[in-house]
């Protein structure tokens, strides 16, 4: 499998050289790597900024989704009231409201974090609700036959059943979260990988933009695997 990737890079490199494509349109992989090394401190610093915005927003989205999901899963009235609002909120294009959020919250990190929350709370919420409702009837019958309280059923049955669903939501959400940070940085920022891409393309520094995009991709993949790593340790009963 790695041979395939290697072949793709080699093909890329050779085509750029063979057709003499200018670096400001499509830089060769070696050119991107050279630029990345040259700009390493800036790239590292801006990666940290984007990572921080992404993680803070992601964690806050989880914190927000947990109580909402519990409320919606266990209470029919809450579901009728909240679900339409949340669905409406989800249906608003986040890219379109990003300038407004910057307008309201200023130039700090917070507008980016809010955009990350908006982008990634929904997949977490929907999966969590589905998980909290996924307890099999046979297991619910068992708990009822023991006279278990709603609280006991929640703790011993609903939460463990919901965990794999929760992690599925998190894995979808965390890749969205990175995109959310970049959207925020595109609209207004002085730092972050999104800002770096914007600046470098406006100055025809295309290799640097490619390096930043590569870093964003790596960041996304790393976060995804990080969650998978946690999931394997928490949900250790599924084969």
């Amino acid at each position, binding site marked *: 499998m790695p041979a395939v990737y290697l072949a793709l890079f080699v093909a890329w490199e050779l085509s750029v050289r063979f057709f003499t494509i200018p670096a400001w349109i499509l830089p060769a992989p070696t050119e991107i790597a050279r630029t990345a090394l040259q700009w390493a401190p800036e790239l590292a610093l801006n990666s940290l900024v984007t990572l921080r915005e992404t993680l803070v927003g992601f964690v806050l989205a989880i914190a927000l989704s947990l109580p909402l999901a519990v409320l919606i899963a266990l209470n029919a009235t809450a579901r009728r009231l909240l679900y339409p609002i949340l669905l409406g909120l989800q249906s608003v294009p986040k890219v379109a409201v990003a300038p407004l959020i910057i307008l309201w919250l200023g130039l700090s990190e917070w507008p980016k974090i809010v955009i990350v929350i908006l982008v990634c709370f929904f997949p977490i919420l929907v999966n969590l609700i589905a998980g909290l409702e996924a307890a099999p009837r*046979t*297991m619910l019958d*068992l*708990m009822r*036959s023991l*006279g278990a309280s709603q609280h006991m059923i929640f703790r*011993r049955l609903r939460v463990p059943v919901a965990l794999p669903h929760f992690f599925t939501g998190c894995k979808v959400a965390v890749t969205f979260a990175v995109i959310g940070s970049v959207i925020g940085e595109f609209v207004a920022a002085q730092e972050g990988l999104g800002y770096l891409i914007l600046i470098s393309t406006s100055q025809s520094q295309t290799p640097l933009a490619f390096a930043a995009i590569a870093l964003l991709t790596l960041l996304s993949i790393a976060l995804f695997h990080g969650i998978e790593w946690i999931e394997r340790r928490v*949900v250790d*009963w599924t084969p």
Partner: protein
Amino acid sequence: MIAAAGGLAAAPPPAADVAAIDLLGVSKHYPGSAGKSVHALGPIDLRIPSGSFVAVVGPSGCGKSTLLRLVAGLEKPDAGTMSRYGTPLDAPSHEVGIVFQEHVLFPWNTVLENVLLPADVLALPKAAARERALRLLEMTGLGAFADHRPQMLSGGMRQRAALCRALLADPRLLLLDEPFGALDALTREELSLELSSLWQDLGRTAFLITHDIEEAILLSDRVLVMSPRPGRIRADFVIDLPRPRNADTPRLPRFQELKQEIRDIIFDRRA
């Protein structure tokens, strides 16, 4: 496989004439398709005397699982009265242990944690419950598997663990909903015999739902035969085979005779 009931106290002798379960004119409908309701069960009269082992056999779809869910307090009847040890039966009770057709063990808990579930729900004293759970697991040959997850166990072992869980809170009445239905024939027979000796040691009341006529005869004092939907009790057999029963019991002529009689009723071939 099951040793004598080392240390598990037998139930106190029940009051002479209070039945464990008493159903009078009980029937149940379910909402069906196109707004029509399906008459699933009854009217049924059923009395399970304290200390006896009563089985219900019938073809699939005859409403026998519905009957067990009613007796368990998991569902309410549309008509009729139900009582449990002389008091109205309208909700599940901790005096009742249930073994379901599927083992229904939680895969995220160990075998011991699963067996201890009733203790957690009923807030029983932890140390005593743990001791009893370990003793039950020992009696059913699962002592070495207490800390395993249930998915590591074979089907028969899982059903044994489910039986231990049902017995943990020392229930007066054990409800068995085709408990060995999902197992292969050999394991089923082995577990039936184990259950028979365990039941005799503990001196509990048991109510078994099954489609397996031999299993019903082997275990029970009485076998009730149900008709197809709407399920009604069509015949009531007293199983006068000697106890303790063992692997040789099915070879007794009386066993074969009872089996044939029950089959004839189920298949409607009685002359």
